[in-house]
């Protein structure tokens, strides 16, 4: 009987590197999340199409505002600029908005389903990121048609395209907007380790976010509102907060409202906020799981 030695020791020479293994797990998580997103296609398609409706009222509202005023522009924005701005914020919000993320995290803490991430070799934040990338990929795959149609239809409102470096900064700002939106909402959700119900906190956050992100109007329109500090307007203050980078900043970059050194200062502020929020999210997870207790089966 020819004996073949069997060893339980892993062969270190053929074992896949940790990085590759991690990537494979992440891709599997992405594939699962993609399938999950596509189960309720009708609901998803309806939700995607509906998001274009508010922009229609905004276009008509601002057209009516400009028709009743003798001003050629408001805070440096012509009527066409305002329309282009709203369309671009639709695009930026498609990257930065994270519907259901904070509430979902808080719910899984509350109902105990989060405990599987404590016993499985899967990083919870990594899983959430994969799920969100899947969510966005499906969303873009569906939304690209209405987005392209609307932008083509409204191309007359846009100024000539910016130069290549500005386009690159614009694309970078979109990716950063996605990461910033993700880490801000995930950190909010992690508050569920300390308070059971975060919905009111999330609602308060959404309120501030909606007002200060530039989603409602270009932040430049707040330049005339004083803060009480000499020479500092509300618009100046908002530039240093993270919210504007999730809607206003990429749109303003494309429209050429922020240029030169100011552009790079703003980009650095955005990178800074992404790093701060990623660290805050990781710290909240680390501290939260240390105080977390789950009972029952």
């Amino acid at each position, binding site marked *: 009987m020819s004996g073949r030695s069997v060893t339980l020791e892993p062969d270190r020479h053929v074992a896949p590197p940790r990085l590759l293994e991690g990537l494979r797990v992440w891709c599997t998580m992405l594939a699962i999340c993609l399938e999950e997103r596509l189960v309720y296609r009708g609901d998803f398609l*309806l*939700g995607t199409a*509906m998001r274009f409706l508010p922009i*229609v009222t905004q276009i008509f509202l601002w057209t*009516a505002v400009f028709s*009743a005023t003798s001003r050629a522009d408001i805070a440096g924005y012509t009527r066409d600029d305002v329309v282009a701005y709203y369309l671009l914020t639709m695009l930026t919000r498609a990257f930065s908005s994270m519907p259901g993320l904070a509430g979902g995290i808080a719910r899984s803490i509350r109902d105990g389903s989060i405990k599987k991430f404590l016993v499985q070799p899967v990083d919870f934040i990594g899983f959430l990121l994969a799920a969100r990338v899947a969510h966005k990929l499906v969303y873009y795959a569906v939304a690209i048609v209405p987005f392209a149609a609307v932008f083509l239809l409204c191309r007359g409102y846009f100024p000539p395209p910016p130069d290549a470096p500005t386009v690159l900064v614009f694309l970078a700002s979109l990716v950063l907007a996605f990461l910033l939106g993700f880490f801000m909402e995930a950190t909010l959700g992690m508050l569920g380790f300390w308070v059971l119900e975060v919905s009111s906190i999330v609602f308060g956050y959404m309120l501030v976010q909606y007002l200060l992100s530039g989603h409602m109007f270009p932040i430049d329109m707040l330049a005339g509102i004083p803060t009480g500090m000499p020479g500092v307007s509300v618009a100046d203050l908002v530039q240093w907060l993270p919210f504007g980078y999730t809607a206003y900043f990429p749109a303003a970059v494309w429209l050429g409202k922020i240029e030169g050194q100011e552009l790079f200062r703003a980009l650095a502020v955005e990178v800074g906020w992404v790093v701060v929020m990623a660290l805050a999210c990781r710290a909240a997870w680390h501290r939260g799981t240390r105080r977390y207790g789950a009972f029952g089966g």
Partner: protein
Amino acid sequence: MSRYLAIFRTFARACLVRDMTFRANFLLECLTSLGWMSMNLAFYLLVFTFTPEIGAGSGWTKAPFFAFVGTGLIVNSIVQALFMPSAEELTEMVRTGGLDAVLVQPLDAQFLVSMHRVDFSSFANGLVGVGLVAWAVPRLEHAPGPIAWLVYPLTILCGVAILYGLVIMLAAATILMGRNQSLYDFWFYLTNFSRYPAEIYAGPWGGPLRAVCTFVIPILLVVNVPARVLARPLAGEAWWAVGTALLAACASLALSRAVFQAALARYRSASS
């Protein structure tokens, strides 16, 4: 009818008891609701720093416009308080089979699906709406007469009925689709059209849109008609608008009832 009123009173009382059990949460809900509304008011105030009126020659200057906004808050708060919380629950009831329990009750399914939960915190916005109307009315160019004050609540009820019909049709869509998480989004986006005076929908695109939102999905009648009754003299064309709102309200209730019944006939239980 009296039986249904008694049951609705019981539902409302139970919801009020529940809200008052968690008073801090109730206050927080009122505050967040008021916060959202204040943000919109801040936006309108900002807009009026740049323009004297919404639409050249439309007559929607600051006071009439805030009467419009106040009216919108009143109509929406009634719908949000009485019908939306129940309708929002429906999406999960259909997905999980919980609707079965509703269908076997010896009560009208539409009544149970749309009115079993009352959200009292939503009335907070309505109170602010009343305050806004009270602020705006003395500043109007044409003070509303006694007839206008009688017609105003009637047109508000018409607006509520139109929106109720819409809620029921969305509920029917939920039953047909099996899941409709976008129900609340759809509601928000569609009612968004009713948030501004109809005059802003002008031009080659605005005209047809205004016609569709008046005669096909009569969402523009919801706030525009009662707001006009207050802000404009009640004569001539204004009476036509009131009549159209009445007709639209009746049609909305009848059509939504038919659609809901048809959707229920196609309902397949998800439970085992």
